[in-house]
């Protein structure tokens, strides 16, 4: 089944200087563009769309093949053209769509054309909001455009303000589930892995519709083809005035299902080196913490099974086990 995906971008300065004395931020106007996390969001959306279309094509080929004996097993490409499909009683292949949405000024159009060149189906810019509009306001405007999408993918945080709050507000506006801080996505199963506080990770199986935010590091946006770049110059960028970008419908909320939550792995503690003026023994004691008052060890006398349960429980308390 084809899917409708929306990707939220923000125009930011990717190079800037901060005056150490006054805190004044000077942006390099030549560096305006999407944050790395926003680019990763589009890449994930394109991969999901590609996977959905490939699965759709394979499914159609499977349904068409028995009538003429031609199919993937015969080494023929599984793709079926819309015309061929229609002729065999199969609905024309409807490709998945990826719409990139941005709240920003007209200067963002060049950035949106980069998204079109990379493979996005459409681009919409919401005009009329000030640069410092608060996250709930931005999310409200975005919701008016992206509502109805099967999946909304955002960058985890923008390079400028970086509060990482718009995706959460957007999910709330849409009344759909959310998975924030996603690191990887299995585009075939829909299972995502996200980062939790304290270095923990968890895997979620997503329903639809849902809002996810992705980190910028794991994937890079594919390089646009030359033909894509040239074609994108003539593609229109839809412009919606902010005041009229009202929310259309509220989808039924579908919370993600926790598949697995990884163990808590506390970060290593940083120990300052002891003073060089101490004796070797004193330095060893300082490093090891020996002879320092601490919580006394707890001694329990239990049967083996109970003792094992006690140990597991303690490890879980400390966070070493899920």
């Amino acid at each position, binding site marked *: 089944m084809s899917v409708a995906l929306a990707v939220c971008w923000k125009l930011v300065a990717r190079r800037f200087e901060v005056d150490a004395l006054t805190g004044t931020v000077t942006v390099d106007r030549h560096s305006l563009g999407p944050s790395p996390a926003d680019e990763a969001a589009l890449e994930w959306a394109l991969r999901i769309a590609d996977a959905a279309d490939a699965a759709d094509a394979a499914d159609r080929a499977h349904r068409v093949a028995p009538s003429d004996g031609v199919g993937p097993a015969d080494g023929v490409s599984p793709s079926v053209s819309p015309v061929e499909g229609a002729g065999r009683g199969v609905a024309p292949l409807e490709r998945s769509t990826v719409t990139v949405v941005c709240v920003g000024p007209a200067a963002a159009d060049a950035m949106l054309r980069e998204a079109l060149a990379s493979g996005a189906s459409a681009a919409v810019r919401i005009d009329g909001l000030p640069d410092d509009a608060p996250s709930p306001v931005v999310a409200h405007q975005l919701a008016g455009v992206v509502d109805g999408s099967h999946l909304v993918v955002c960058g985890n945080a923008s390079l400028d303000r970086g509060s990482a709050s718009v995706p959460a507000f957007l999910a709330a506006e849409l009344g759909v589930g959310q998975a924030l801080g996603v690191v990887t996505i299995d585009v075939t199963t829909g299972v995502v892995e996200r980062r939790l506080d304290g270095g923990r990770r968890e895997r979620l199986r997503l329903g639809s519709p849902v809002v996810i935010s992705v980190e910028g590091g794991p994937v890079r946006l594919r390089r646009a083809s*030359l033909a894509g*770049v040239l074609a994108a110059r003539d593609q229109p960028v839809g412009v919606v005035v902010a005041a009229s970008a009202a929310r259309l419908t509220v989808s039924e909320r579908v919370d993600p299902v926790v598949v697995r939550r990884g163990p808590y792995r506390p970060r290593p503690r940083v120990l300052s080196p002891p003073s060089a003026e101490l004796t070797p023994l004193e330095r060893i004691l300082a490093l090891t913490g020996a002879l320092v008052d601490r919580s006394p060890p707890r001694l329990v006398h239990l049967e083996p099974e109970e003792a094992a349960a006690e140990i597991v429980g303690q490890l879980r308390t400390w966070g070493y086990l899920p």
Partner: protein
Amino acid sequence: MTAAPDPFDVIVVGAGPAGSAAALAVARAGLRVALLERGPFPGSKNMYGGVIYGRVLDQVIPNWWDEIPIQRWITRRGTMILTPTQSLCLDFRSQTWAGPPYNGATALRPDFDAWLAAKAEAAGSVLVTSTVATDVVRDPSGRVVGVVTDRPDPATGASTSALRARVVIACDGVNSFIAKAAGLYPGASEQAEHTTLGVKEVLRLPRESIEQRFNLTGREGADFEVVGCTMDVPGGGFLYTNLDTISVGVVLHLPGLAASKHRPEEILAGFKAHPSIAPFVAGGEIVEYSAHLIPEGGYDQIPTLAGDGLLVAGDAAGLCLAAGVWLEGVNFAIGSGLAAGATAVEAIRSGDTTAARGLAGYRARLEANFVLADHKKLRRVPEFLLSGRAQFQYPQLTCDVVEDLFTVRNPAPKQGIARLAWKSARRSRVRLRDLARDGWTAIRSYG
């Protein structure tokens, strides 16, 4: 690898001054032109000779000075000779240069190049950034009919794709991939022999400090070219003012740099520490450090400028004038770019893009205007300027003469200048025969 379905008449590779000027000329003639730029925006590498002389723009952008994004208009122009402990400066100032039509200006390349590329775009050029042209595409006859780019081709899955046009203009800098691929360049060692490395720091200072140190007001600017400041490496130095930064750097002959075992940044640090330079740069915060190769071979080292379906302009064609008192590149790039664009238009309209006929007018155009005329007149200067005598002996000789002239040795009586010069020449081991020959070269070149 497949060709794009919508070919252009002309592809210009490189959106620097030469490329944008070429694209502007082609677009204004009504032809379709693609302007490929490897950086994320035109001018993303902020390196150039120090001063942009805009007179070449008079014919194509009237009153360009009203809109050009400059930093400062040069009103103070200096040539310095340094030895480790001495300096001699010819410092000239003209307020005539402080108003229209001006003479030269300092600018930041991200601003200037973006402005000129925008002119080309406004005329109809299609600017494609972040795209490297890595090779040429030839037809069966060997004629260049396009370029290979580093953008993928989704139709074939290849990591490169081709873009076709009837003429390609290579303006992709001193190390031009396109000119190399077309076989227009000499071997690497020969090219290195006539190439220098420029390294530059941009130092931030309060605008008032710059104006006090350089004795400037408003948008006035200063530019100093320096010789004798590069340790044992042939080369030179430069120092010029931007609005709230100054640019200081050295230019180093590549073979000399390799033989000396000095690091470029070490030589630049020595230049900045010289007693005559240090007060100008004191307290400056480094906001940029960059390096760039410069073609300084002059007229005799200019490569073949045209192949079948191909023209070469700007630094790619070695069109940079490094002639001591004159250090110019941007104006030669623009001049050659405009000529290349006009030649391409004529060739396409005539239906002949061969080097022997349709594109043969390019060199004639350049010979007829300042681009090759200046290079030809000063053809002997680059070799002389990078010689040991010009780099080490003459600066020492000159400074010694002036020092002796101004040193009061009472009760001994003053000596005549000729006698001082003779003594200094002997001390500097300058032979009269060399002095006479170099003097004759200077008269023929600069006279």
